[in-house]
């Protein structure tokens, strides 16, 4: 008969899990063009010049930069972002292409993305997904562009979009997240490098998942990508985002902006599996993931759904939000945030109901292990004229160690008498009875925890596209292995 596991086993397993190596921590030895550290107007001009941008975009950047100078970094989050020396970061790093005339990508680069499991070679790929791969500051390669173009779908890097579709970019850039929005948004607007641009024309249902893979490679650089997604009337798109970075002792900054515009009856599904390097078991190194993500459901009956699995980053500060402007528009937010060791996550969403009969759903699952701090921060606001709105929020926290913390900071504002808003939150440790039940049936404590946590997060995982769900589930079980308190 199997002996019942002793309590010490739990600690031992945690240690093992904590020491489990970050799989994506390698560095690609590739020649990179980096502009020197520091930030001033000349750097902003230089980034713009390197990317051969039109005058209006440079103006946009400079306005943002000047505004950024007047701002202070926000301190309200339940995270400890140390003072960042913005002069000690390089704002542009581009892998050098060895052969510029051939449209092949560098083999070293290809190897990197192969290691990450990103299907860059169209012939090789099976999963049916178009990919835009971004390393450091530039988009390396976008697959399936031609096939998508047949349908009128534009999927390319934002730098290319600026050149090829300047009117579209100019029409939508900064309309959902203006550069005045917050400190990091202003910084991003000034120095943003690359990211994806997606435009789905009227009535088109994008036939495949669009995906962007972000990779920080160069040391002492920051990544400031910018993604813009526009779904015109009756369009549909599912967009996936993944991120990894090498293991380094110093912290690196990632300050992105994602803007989404959803027109009448259109639907956008945005899924993220965020696995930036979280730092080592003593909390050294890791990415500061300080991003602004917001979608505007401008059209009636439009729908925007955010799904995120957050397992990486030393610090996460991110609130994918929906502005529900159209009548009958729908906003959704599904999140699993897992923190271990010394990670800190302050994440959640804002649902701003401006349109009549708009509805929103928030499901947030936090899991804290080690010495980590995990917070849900959210806002549901119903404007006085937005009658008949409905919101349901559920945020649960699971504590896997007695040294970790789980917090919820929701704000609810209801401005009329025909809307219904509900919020529920619970915090507890993993149910010992359930573990005992599993143990009785020969399932080790470690596996039992994995089972229970996966069951706990299932509601959110079920919302992920299949390709991502598998990756996310693996990611969760790797990070969770034996985190028994």
């Amino acid at each position, binding site marked *: 008969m199997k002996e019942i596991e002793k309590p010490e086993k739990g600690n031992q397993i945690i240690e093992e899990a904590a020491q489990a190596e970050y799989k994506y921590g390698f560095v690609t030895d590739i020649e990179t063009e980096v502009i020197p550290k520091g930030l001033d107007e000349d750097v902003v001009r230089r980034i713009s010049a390197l990317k051969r941008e039109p005058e209006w975009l440079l103006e946009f950047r400079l306005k943002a930069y000047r505004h950024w100078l007047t701002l202070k970094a926000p301190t*309200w989050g339940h995270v400890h972002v140390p003072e960042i020396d913005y002069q000690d970061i390089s704002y542009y790093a581009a892998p050098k292409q060895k052969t510029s005339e051939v449209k092949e990508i560098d083999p070293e680069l290809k190897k990197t993305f192969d290691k990450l499991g990103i299907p860059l070679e169209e012939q090789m790929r099976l999963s049916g997904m178009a990919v835009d791969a971004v390393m450091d500051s530039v988009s390396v390669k976008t697959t399936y562009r031609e096939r998508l173009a047949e349908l009128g779908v534009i999927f390319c890097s934002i730098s290319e979009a600026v050149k090829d579709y300047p009117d579209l970019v100019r029409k939508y850039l900064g309309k959902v997240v203006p550069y005045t929005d917050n400190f990091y948004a202003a910084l991003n607007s000034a120095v943003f490098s690359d990211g994806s641009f997606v435009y789905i024309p009227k009535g088109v249902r994008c036939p495949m998942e669009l995906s962007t893979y972000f990779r920080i490679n160069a040391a002492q650089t920051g990544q400031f990508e910018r993604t813009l997604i526009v779904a015109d009337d009756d369009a549909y798109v599912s967009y996936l985002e993944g991120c990894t970075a090498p293991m380094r002792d110093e912290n690196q900054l990632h300050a992105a902006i994602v803007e989404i515009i959803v027109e009448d009856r259109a639907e956008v599904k945005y899924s993220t599996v965020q696995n930036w390097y979280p730092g080592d078991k003593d909390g050294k190194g890791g990415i500061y993931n300080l991003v602004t993500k917001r979608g505007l459901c401008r059209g009636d009956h439009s729908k925007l759904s955010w799904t995120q699995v957050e397992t990486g980053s030393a610090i996460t500060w991110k609130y994918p939000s929906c502005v529900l402007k159209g009548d009958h528009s729908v906003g959704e937010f599904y999140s699993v945030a897992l923190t271990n060791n010394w990670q800190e996550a302050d994440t959640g969403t804002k649902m701003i109901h401006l349109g009549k009969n708009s509805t929103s759903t928030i499901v947030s699952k936090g899991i804290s292990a080690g010495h980590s701090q995990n917070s849900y921060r959210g806002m549901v606001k119903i404007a*006085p004229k937005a*009658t008949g709105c409905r919101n349901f929020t559920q945020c649960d*926290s699971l*504590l*896997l*160690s*007695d*040294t*970790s*913390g*789980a*917090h*919820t*900071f*929701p*704000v*609810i*504002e*209801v*401005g*009329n*008498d*025909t*809307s*219904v*808003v*509900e*919020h*529920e*939150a*619970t*915090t*507890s*440790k993993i149910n010992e009875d359930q573990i005992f039940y599993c143990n009785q049936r020969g399932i080790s404590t470690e596996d039992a925890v994995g089972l229970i946590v996966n069951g706990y997060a299932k509601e959110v995982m079920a919302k992920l596209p299949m390709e991502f769900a598998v990756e996310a589930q693996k990611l969760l079980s790797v990070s969770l292995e034996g985190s028994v*308190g």
Partner: protein
Amino acid sequence: MNALKQYIDLYDESRDLIEEQSPALLNKMRRVAREHLEDARLPRKGSEDYEATDLEAVFAHDYGVNVNRLPFAADPAETFHCDVPNMSTCLYYTSNDAFHSSATAERNIGQVVVEPFSMAAVDYPELMTAYYGQLAHMSDPTVALNSLLVQDGLFIYVPDGVVAERPIQLVNIFNAALDMMVHRRLLIIVGKNAGIKLLMCDHTQSPDYHYLNNQVVEIVAMQGSTVDYYDMEESTPLTNRVSSIYVDQHEGSNVLINGITLINGFTRNNYHVEVNGEHAETQLLGMTIASGEQHVDSHTFISHNAPRCHSNEMFKYVLNDKAVGAFAGKILVKPDCPRVEAYQGNRNLCGAPTAKMYTKPQLEIYTDDVMCSHGSAVGQLDEEALFYMRTRGIGIDEARRLLMQAFVADVIDGVRLDALKDRLHYLVEKRFAGTLSNCASCMQACRPNNKK
């Protein structure tokens, strides 16, 4: 603009006069408060923890402060008959900020001490020194302002092992013929294994004047003690109140605080509970029925500093017309406090398109072996229930009233005094019917059997 300045200036001008009339201990704290107020600002609307409430605007009005301690003519005990039927409370009055005893106060109070600070400073100097101003946070400018200008207060002491037989009722009345601000202060010390039930009622006699009550209550619940604190506000639309209640709970103590707002102008209630001993139990209940332009903002903070404690919060709001309700509650469980169970609920009914509700329930947990939850909902009356009643011949208004009464019933049922429970049900019924008027006519309104 700094609304505090006018009051600080008043203090600086009349410092000698104020200090002359107060016990030395109060004067000592006054100096600490003055230092805190040097650079202090009252929070504006939108600042942290004040999402819906502009304290600066509330204090900006030019209120008179009775620094000369002039007596007001009316004897409240003569004018008011606020005792709860069938409850036989020991009744005390605060007229503006002056303390009065009543005929019923003397009856069988046993060993429980109820006296003004001026007497307590002589009778119980050790207790006063040990606890006065020790729980309240001077960093809160309203607490500092209270400490700066308070001239007297009420000291309630229940010695170890004494369980007060009768509830103590304190009726606070505004009856000045001018706009006035008062600084009421209570220090309640309940000894080991002692017990007390307190009922506070806030009334206003003259509906035409603006009043502001800036009160601070400090409650110390020693090992194994039981404290019931019922706080009912039934004043006028021109009466404003900022109330801060600080509680220090020791091992095995049981504290129930129930705050009820029926009629008011602007109210901000702060509840700050430090649970410092194991097996302590805390219950915070609140109910607000607001219409017109009433504004009620409740802010709770329960800090679990010891393992194996239990806390339960439930706040309910019924908002009509242009009423604004706000609730912010935080539960903190400190590290190494396993087996804490903490629940928080906030349920709100918005009964008019112009009524607004802000709610912010928060959990901050640093121990894994806990059971904590919060729930918050804003909505309307159940259409089906209304329809059901109407099919049975109950008019829409009556049906709504019945459902609203049922909605708040569980907060009233949390009251651990049957007579008070009955009275509250009665008052709430009248409030929903719109027949509960202000205090000037309370002799008709409060008591169902008052024929006067």
